[in-house]
């Protein structure tokens, strides 16, 4: 792996991978996770898979359906489509959404490489050249200069910046665009504001919009399913309502408090949009908000319209059309209900898609006020309407900062004011706030699990995060001491579930994870039994 990788290597070597992952080359983990021989195995591709799949990047495959060309003509067709996509990315008519920041990021890189040291994937990989943020960006820059700008081919030869564009280049480039969490730590540290994450995302967009290549979990079983049936999970409106009714009953009994979740209430002050995955996999989250909103006397509702009960918008990860369709759907639902504002649940990319990007899409009456769940919850907790007993939360708690809420939107303190008030043993991890490390599931990766991609997420993308979490509880390594990682974002929780499962973190360190709302409910005087539990009853 350690051989010096050149930019031009991306086009060479046909079907052979450019690098491979070896556990002993990755950055070390703290004890008791430090012994390489005890770490979970990295699943290698079988000979049959190597034969059948396109796997020429790093021995990892995130998209098994990547087509192999049948002949030279087909190969040529794909390459031409790629060039056509490049040109569209640079044109005002075809890329009004992100053209300006893309051009700035293409033109202003000073090649100082400061960003590399900020990238959790590059660092975790043991500084594997392939994952250097500028490796991807610089190749893209050269391809743009050569194929999408006037006189480019001539200049490329003259400047010796020639990167050949062939089947190998584009397939490797496709996979490489999904080796980035879009966390934008690189953009934050760059003295010029060059955004490598945006470049990675625009490469994905090119592949999706021009070649129809996108991870099936994000597209076919993602945004397409959401617009059709209501949610990428496949959760239909009637099943969503049925599930919550079931949960209302279950948790009313479990907590000893009456819980009733309102649906489709016209003219409510607040439309709360959770992620459907939370309803299904982490129901303590949505239930907590039902408890808190009711206790605080808020006039609120959920929506059972198709798409109205799932705030995720995977379009933000890979495709502008899908992004716009999903965001518009969310806004239309709120408009029809006549609510005063929309509150976005504990989901980071929902914040980014709906609070920032959608500001350029939603106009006129569709531009309904949108608020983060962090400030919404802060208002509830400090409203004086709910009685809390922080001693109920007397266990070590640390906070994970979802990149899209914290670094992207600058919402840093509300969640901390809640934790300082309600959790006597709250401690920060290092680094935190806007300098946090991504969980490793950002950029849509947390829902992707094709072939052996989960291994890469657990071993490489989430590695620095795991280290941070373990280090934050270094004063209580004993698994008997029960600890809580607060991760107020569904995508982050899914990634933590994978990592915790791989490394047996609950068993070996006594750490569980969950959202922020749960900690507030757990500290309520009015609940008879705790919501947060380390063991199953």
């Amino acid at each position: 792996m350690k051989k010096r990788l050149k930019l031009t290597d991306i086009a060479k070597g046909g079907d052979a991978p450019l690098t491979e992952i070896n556990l002993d080359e990755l950055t070390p983990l703290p004890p008791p996770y430090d012994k390489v021989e005890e770490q979970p195995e990295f699943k290698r591709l079988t000979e049959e898979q190597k034969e059948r799949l396109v796997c020429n990047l790093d021995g990892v495959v995130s998209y098994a359906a990547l087509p192999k060309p049948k002949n030279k003509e087909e190969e040529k067709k794909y390459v031409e489509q790629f060039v056509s996509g490049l040109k569209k990315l640079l044109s005002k008519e075809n890329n009004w959404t992100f053209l300006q920041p893309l051009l700035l990021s293409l033109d202003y890189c000073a090649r100082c490489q400061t960003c590399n040291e900020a990238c959790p994937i590059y660092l975790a990989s043991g500084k594997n050249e392939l994952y250097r943020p500028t490796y991807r960006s610089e190749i893209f820059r050269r391809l743009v200069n050569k194929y999408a700008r006037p006189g480019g081919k001539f200049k490329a030869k003259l400047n010796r910046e020639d990167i050949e564009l062939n089947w190998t280049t584009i397939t490797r480039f496709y996979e490489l665009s999904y080796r980035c969490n879009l966390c934008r730590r690189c953009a934050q540290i760059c003295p010029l504001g060059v955004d490598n994450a945006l470049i990675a995302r625009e490469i994905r967009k090119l592949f999706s919009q021009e070649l129809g290549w996108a991870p099936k979990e994000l597209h076919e079983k993602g945004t397409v399913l959401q617009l059709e049936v209501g949610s990428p999970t496949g959760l239909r409106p009637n099943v969503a309502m049925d599930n919550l009714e079931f949960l209302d009953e279950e948790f009313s009994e479990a907590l000893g408090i009456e819980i009733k979740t309102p649906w489709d209430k016209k003219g409510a002050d607040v439309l709360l949009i959770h992620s459907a995955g939370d309803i299904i996999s982490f129901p303590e989250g949505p239930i907590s908000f039902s408890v808190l909103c009711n206790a605080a006397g808020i006039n609120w509702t959920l929506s059972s319209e198709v798409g109205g009960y799932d705030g995720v918008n995977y379009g933000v990860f890979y495709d502008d059309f899908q992004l716009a369709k999903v965001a518009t759907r969310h806004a239309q639902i709120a408009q029809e209900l006549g609510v005063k504002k929309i509150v976005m649940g504990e989901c980071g990319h929902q914040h980014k898609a709906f609070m920032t990007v959608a500001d350029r899409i939603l106009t006129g009456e569709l531009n309904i006020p949108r608020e983060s769940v962090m400030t919404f919850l802060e208002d509830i907790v400090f409203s004086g309407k709910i009685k809390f007993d922080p001693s109920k939360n007397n266990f070590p708690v640390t906070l994970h900062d979802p990149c899209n809420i914290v670094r992207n939107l600058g919402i840093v303190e509300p969640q901390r004011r809640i934790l300082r008030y309600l959790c006597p043993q709250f401690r920060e991890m290092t680094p935190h706030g806007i300098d946090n490390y991504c969980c490793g599931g950002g950029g849509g990766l947390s829902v992707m699990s094709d072939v052996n991609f989960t291994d890469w997420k657990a071993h490489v993308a989430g590695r620095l995060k795991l280290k941070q979490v373990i280090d934050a509880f270094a004063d209580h390594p004993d698994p008997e001491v029960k600890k809580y990682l607060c991760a107020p974002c569904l995508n982050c929780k899914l990634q933590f579930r994978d990592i915790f499962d791989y490394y047996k973190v609950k068993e070996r360190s006594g750490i569980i994870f969950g959202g922020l709302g749960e900690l507030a409910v757990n500290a309520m005087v009015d609940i008879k039994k705790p919501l947060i539990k380390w063991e199953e009853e």
Partner: protein
Amino acid sequence: MAQMKLAGDTYEVDENGFMQETDRWTEDVARAYAARENVNELTDEHWTAVNYLRNYYLENGICPMIRRLIKETGFNLSKLYQLFPEGPAQSACKWAGVPKPTGCV
């Protein structure tokens, strides 16, 4: 698309081994999946969970929440892991011939 031989027939599966043609499922398919995970006999308890999962999926287009599965079958999570080595999502859903749960779950 990957393929897998189960109980003498060939089926289309995803890269994690989940059946893509739900309607071609048979009880023998469930047994064949179980055998691949070294469970050589399916007990009534296995069938209770497998049948519940499968019927819920066919009716609702999605796998049930774990909580519901626990409530309906009366098996707690550790019991489910005893019955299905890789757990309810990775083993039980697979044996029941329904697609792998995706989309933030």
